[in-house]
């Protein structure tokens, strides 16, 4: 494909120049000219008021592959020490919704672990579980995990494969995509089905959360995505749900790495932050480290945990383990109370899927109010102490 300018139609208005993310369009002699930095992103196509910018298909473009052999939605259920990770249940929730929309089956792949865990996956929404309990999968090594998943994909041909965007998923899934020659979209925060084409619309943040992008994989199968933990909701748990467990053999699987030791060092508050149903977070607007004492009191009253924006962490008012956002933790509590946080987009991507967001900020223009369920324009040092007092009174 090439993007070209129809010189006859071009008026040299320059709107395309501004639209180009790669500064690859110039005006030369009153006409638009596309130089060699063009990344074929198509951003200019819709901008031109004259319709003078067009894409030209070349030989080899848009080869329609036969995709009809690929059916069903799969999720990869990662396990650590035999227990399925919580992201596996979130993927079952998302996968169930997609499978129902496509009127197809939902299957889970479980490598390592035991039959009890496989049964749990069925109760959380899977119709089928491909389970291999070979000890080669007990510890995480990229090669056996990717070889096994590649084998299963080639044999059973799913149309969609989802995995958690965790250190495990983000490490070995790319090998799978490389091997089966298909597309992979990293760290998705939303997944939809295009009703006409049955394609998976894979939505993810890019450029540090400054923009969102919708990614398609139209001519290759399966469509593979890693999904950000704690963004998708778990599905319905049904004790009586029936499904099939398909045992799989690991014969022929090889491995050139070896895990010698596993050391746990997650601080408790980090775990608490991601598990908490209520989070009270503070930002630069607190103005001093003592502000977090007040937030701790509020968090305790609500049975929650304390979080922070990057600004507050950079000021060293609170430790990095409390940081919420692009370079910190992604959280999804029932209630998120943002105190003196302006709401930089890097913070918003880490908390905007919370059920209820309460924003307290002096500046009525602060972007945090754009994502807030309830907004209070005011001084945190007036609002929060009064809130603490009233809550205490209500509790008696």
């Amino acid at each position, binding site marked *: 494909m090439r993007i070209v300018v129809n010189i006859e139609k071009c008026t040299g208005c320059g709107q395309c120049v501004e639209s180009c993310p790669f500064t690859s369009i110039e005006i030369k002699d009153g006409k638009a000219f596309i130089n060699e930095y063009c990344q074929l992103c198509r951003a200019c196509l819709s901008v031109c008021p004259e319709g003078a910018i067009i894409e030209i298909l070349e030989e080899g473009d848009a080869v329609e592959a036969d995709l009809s052999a690929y059916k069903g939605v799969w999720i990869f259920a990662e396990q650590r020490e035999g227990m399925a990770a919580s992201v596996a249940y979130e993927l079952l929730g998302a996968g169930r919704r997609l499978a129902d929309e496509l009127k197809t089956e939902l299957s889970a792949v479980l490598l390592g672990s035991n039959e009890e865990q496989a049964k749990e996956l069925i109760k959380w929404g899977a119709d089928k579980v491909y389970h291999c309990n070979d000890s080669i999968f007990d510890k995480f090594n990229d090669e056996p995990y990717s070889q096994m998943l590649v084998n299963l994909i080639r044999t059973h041909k799913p149309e969609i494969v989802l995995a958690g965007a965790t250190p495990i998923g983000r490490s070995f899934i*790319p090998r799978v995509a490389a091997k089966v020659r298909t597309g992979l979209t990293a760290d998705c925060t939303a997944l939809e089905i295009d009703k006409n084409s049955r394609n998976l619309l894979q939505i993810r943040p890019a450029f540090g959360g400054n923009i969102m992008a919708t990614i398609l994989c139209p001519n290759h199968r399966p469509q593979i995505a890693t999904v950000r933990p704690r963004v998708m909701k778990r599905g319905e748990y049904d004790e009586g749900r029936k499904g099939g467990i398909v045992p799989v053999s690991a014969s022929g699987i090889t491995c050139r790495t070896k895990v010698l030791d596993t050391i746990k060092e997650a601080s408790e508050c980090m775990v608490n932050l991601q598990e908490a149903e209520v989070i009270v977070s503070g930002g630069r607007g607190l103005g001093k480290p003592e502000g977090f004492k007040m937030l701790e009191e509020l968090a305790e009253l609500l049975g929650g945990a304390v979080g922070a924006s990057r600004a507050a962490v950079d000021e060293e008012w609170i430790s990095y383990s409390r940081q919420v956002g692009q370079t910190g933790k992604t959280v999804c509590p029932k209630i998120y109370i943002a105190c003196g946080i302006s709401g930089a987009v890097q913070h918003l991507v880490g908390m905007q899927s919370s059920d209820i967001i309460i924003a307290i900020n002096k500046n009525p223009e602060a972007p945090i109010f754009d994502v807030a369920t309830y907004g209070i324009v005011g001084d945190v040092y007036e609002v929060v102490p009064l*809130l603490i007092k009233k809550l205490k009174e209500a509790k008696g």
Partner: protein
Amino acid sequence: MNIIVCVKQVPDTSEVRINPETNTLIREGVPSIINPYDLHAVEAALQIKEKTGAKVTVITMGPPQAEDALREAISMGADDVRLISDRAFAGADTWATSHALYKAIEKLGYDIILCGKQAIDGDTAQVGPEVAEFLNIPHIAYIRKIEDVGDKTIKVQRLMDDGYDVVESSLPVLLTVVKELNTPRLPSLKGKMAAKKAVITKMDMNAIGAEAGNVGLKGSPTQVKNIFAPQSKADRKMIEGSVEEQVEALIRELGGLKCA
């Protein structure tokens, strides 16, 4: 021993904004930098070089101006560089990018390949592991410490969600590194002089021996359908009144939801 470091020239994303009317990136005046994670990969390579006398080659795929990134790598102490550049590579997703890098690396020879854990513009973290798969070598991602480099094996610490794993691998191997690994050195004066004088060797499609159907937009399974600004919720409710009234209203709202 040959070490190859893959780097990427990226826009400094803390300065990238979206034009809300056209839904496109505003890149004007945004400086280009070496992807910060990749600097840690270069530093790791230089430290191994100091211990073992390895040769460090830094490569990048990108448009002609990505040459600047390679000069910066030379100024830090890289022995050699390659610019993998061809118009046919434009529009590559992670599959097509890794494929081109793999073809180039195959021509160069390697024992250890180092990459940053991800690039800050795409944040995918996929190119390193994909290159390893194409080369049919093991990889270990999210390296926070290199404990030991032997003739045939390497021992590293891999960052996990709840701590870290100590992992051993045979060589050759590909590693992707996190910031905790080291502090990248600043260019020396001698390095800066060398960078100025260096002739940058370019590798185009013929030089790497790739097929047109496997690189650039044509070789890319994924397509960007559209980009847009992060959405804001429409159902927000601003609570007005005195502080007393605001707080009471808030508690009323929370009480109605049976959470407070």
